[in-house]
C-alpha cells in the first residue's frame, strides 16, 4: 500500500500535464472553449461529478465500493423537491432533510456491509435498486417541476465564468482532504483500508471507520443530487442514473486501488477535470455524444494498465516475484 500511495503523486503529475495540454489544445482548436458560458457550464458539470467521484473514492479507500451513489443522489433530489413543491416545506428545511436522508442511506449501506461482512458490491447493488425503486415508486418517473426560485437560481448563479456551485464542491473537497490527512479517524480509515486484519489486531475502530466512510459517501451523493436538481430546475427522477461509470472513473484513473488504503483526492480531482475536458471537447467538435462513454471506458483501462505496467516494471527491476512483492514493497 505504501508503494501505491507513493506512486499517487506521479499519477497526479501525469494527469496535471495531460489536463493542461488538453486545455491548451482545446482553446487553440476551439476558441469557444474559453467563452464565459462554456467555462461556466463545464465547471458546473465538473463540480457535480467531482462530488460523485469523491463519494466513491472515500468508500474505495476502505477497500469497499458503493454502487448506490446515483440512486442516493436521485432519491435525495426527489425527496427535497417533493417536500418543497408538494408540501411547501421551506427550502432550508427540505435541504437539511434531504442531506440527512443521504447520510442515512450511506449509514444503511455501512451497517449492512459491517454486520454481514458480505461483499459491498452485491449489498450496494441491492440497496441501489431499493433506493431507485422508492424514487420511482414515489414519482412514477414524473419530475417535480417548479422548484422554488432560490434553488433554481442557485443552479444558474455565477461570478464571471465561475459557477457559485463550485464553491460548495471546493469547500467539501478541501474538508475531505483535511479529514483524511489531519483527523485521526481519517487516518484510521486509510489504515483499515490498507490492511483490515492488522487494523483489527491493533484495535482500530473498524465499525466507526466503515460507517463514517459510507456516511460521507451518502452525504456527497446527496449534495451532488441536490446540485443537479438546482441546475435542472426540477426534481428529475433520473438524477444519478448515469453516475456509476464516472464515480469509478475518477478515483481509479486518479490512482485509487480497489483493495483500499489509498485516497488520492488530488488524483481524483485531476481525473474528473480530464473527463469533463473530454466531455466538453466532444460537444465543441459536435461529435456523437456516445463517444463519451467509449472514451471513459478506454481511459479507465488505459490508466489501470499504465499504473499496473509501472508496478510490474518495478517488480522486474527488483527481481521480486508477484507473490512476495507485497511484503517487499511495503518495507522501504
Amino acid at each position, binding site marked *: 500500500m505504501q508503494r501505491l500511495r507513493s506512486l499517487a503523486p506521479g499519477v497526479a503529475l501525469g494527469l496535471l500535464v495531460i489536463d493542461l495540454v488538453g486545455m491548451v489544445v482545446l482553446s487553440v482548436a476551439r476558441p469557444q472553449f474559453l467563452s464565459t458560458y462554456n467555462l461556466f457550464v463545464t465547471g458546473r458539470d465538473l463540480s457535480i461529478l467531482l462530488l460523485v467521484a469523491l463519494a466513491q473514492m472515500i468508500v474505495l479507500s476502505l477497500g469497499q465500493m458503493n454502487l448506490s451513489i446515483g440512486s442516493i443522489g436521485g432519491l435525495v433530489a426527489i425527496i427535497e423537491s417533493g417536500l418543497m413543491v408538494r408540501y411547501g416545506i421551506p427550502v432550508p428545511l427540505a435541504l437539511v432533510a434531504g442531506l440527512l436522508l443521504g447520510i442515512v442511506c450511506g449509514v444503511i449501506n455501512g451497517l449492512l456491509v459491517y454486520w454481514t461482512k458480505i461483499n459491498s458490491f452485491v449489498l450496494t447493488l441491492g440497496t441501489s*435498486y431499493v433506493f431507485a425503486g422508492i424514487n420511482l415508486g414515489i414519482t412514477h418517473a414524473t419530475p417535480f417541476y417548479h422548484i422554488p426560485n432560490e434553488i433554481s437560481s442557485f443552479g444558474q448563479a455565477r461570478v464571471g465564468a465561475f459557477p457559485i456551485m463550485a464553491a460548495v464542491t471546493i469547500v467539501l473537497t478541501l474538508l475531505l482532504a483535511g479529514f483524511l490527512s489531519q483527523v485521526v479517524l481519517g487516518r484510521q480509515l486509510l489504515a483499515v483500508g490498507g490492511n483490515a486484519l492488522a487494523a483489527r489486531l491493533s484495535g482500530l475502530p473498524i465499525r466507526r471507520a466503515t460507517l463514517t466512510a459510507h456516511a460521507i459517501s451518502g452525504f456527497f451523493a446527496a449534495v451532488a443530487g441536490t446540485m443537479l436538481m438546482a441546475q435542472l430546475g426540477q426534481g428529475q427522477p433520473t438524477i444519478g442514473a448515469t453516475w456509476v461509470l464516472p464515480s*469509478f472513473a475518477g478515483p481509479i484513473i486518479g490512482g485509487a486501488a480497489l483493495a483500499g488504503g489509498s485516497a488520492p483526492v488530488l488524483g481524483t480531482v485531476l481525473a474528473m477535470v480530464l473527463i469533463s475536458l473530454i466531455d466538453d471537447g466532444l460537444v465543441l467538435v459536435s461529435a456523437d455524444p456516445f463517444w463519451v462513454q467509449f472514451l471513459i*471506458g478506454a481511459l479507465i*483501462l488505459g490508466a489501470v494498465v499504465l499504473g499496473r505496467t509501472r508496478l510490474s516494471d518495478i517488480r522486474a527491476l527488483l527481481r521480486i516475484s508477484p507473490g512476495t512483492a507485497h511484503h517487499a514493497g511495503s518495507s522501504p
Partner: protein
Amino acid sequence: MTGGALLRQVALLALLFVTAGFWIYFSVAAAGFTSDFNLFSLLRFAAIQITIGFAQMVALSIGDLNLAVGAIGGATGMVAGWAMQILGLPPEVAVLFALAAGTLLGFGNALLITWTRINSFIVTLATASLITGAMLILTHSDPFSRLPDSFTSFSETEVAGLPVSNLVLVMLAVGVALFFLYRNLSLGREMLAVGANRRAARMSGLSVDRVVLLTHGLSGALAATAGLMAISADHTASPSLGSDWLLASFVAPAIGGTLLSGGLVSVPGTIVGGVLLATISNGLLLVGIDNFWITVFLGVVLLLAVVLDRVTRAAGGAAP
C-alpha cells in the same frame, strides 16, 4: 462436506417451496395469472432472465464478475439484428455470428484480466462502457426492427401445445449443458477450483489463465444467447437492450445458492431463482402493484438472498 451439500439441497428445496407458494398465491389473488397467455410470457421472460443469470454465474464460478453481461448481450443482439436486417443473412448464420461476437468479447475481457492482472470488476466495468459506447456510435442508436418472421416467430411458437415458448427449451438445453460441464467435465471442475482458491489452483499446476479465458468466453457466449432470445421475443434489436440486466444477472444466481466469491455454482438453483424472479415481477404487476415498487422488491430479494446465504453457511459451518 456432506453437511454443506445437504444444507444446499435443503436450501434449494426451500426455494422451490417459496416459488410454489408464490404461484399458488398469485393463482388465487391475481386474475389472469394462470391464463395460457400469461404463463407463456412469464416463462419466456423467466427463460431470458435465467440465461442472463447463467452468463453471470459462469463468471462467478471462477470468482470473477462480469459487469459487461448486459453490454455484450445488447451489442451482440444488435449485431444479429444488423446481420439479418441489413446484410440479409439467414437467421441461423446471424445467430452464429452473434454467438461468435459474444465469445470474442468475452475473450477480450479475459485477455485484459490475465495480461494486466487487474480486477475483473474494473476490467468489465471499462469494457462494458467501451462495448456499449462502440455499439451506440456504430448504430447511431437506431434499432433494427424489421427482423425476419422466421426469427421472431421462434419465440412465439408453443412447445407441444403447452404455454411454453421455444426459448424455454433453449434455456433448459443451456442449463443441462452447464450442469454437465460443472458435474462431469474437467474444465468445469477446474473452473470451480480456480474460483475456490485461485492461488492453490495455480500452485497445483492448473493453467489458471486458460480457465479464465474459456470462462469469460463462455460468459460472453451466454450473454449473446440471452441477447438473441430477447430480440426474438421483442421482435426488435433495440440499442437499450441489456442496459437493465445487471440486477437480474446477480439475483437469479444469488437466490439459487451460487457463491459470489466463487467455487460453488448451482444450475438448478439459478433456474428456480430466475423463475421466482419472473413470477414475482409478473404476479405483482397483475395484482396491481406498480412496476416501480417491484424494483424495490427485487433489490430486497437480492439483499435477503445474500444475507440468508451468509447465515446458512455460518450455521452449517461447512466450507463448500
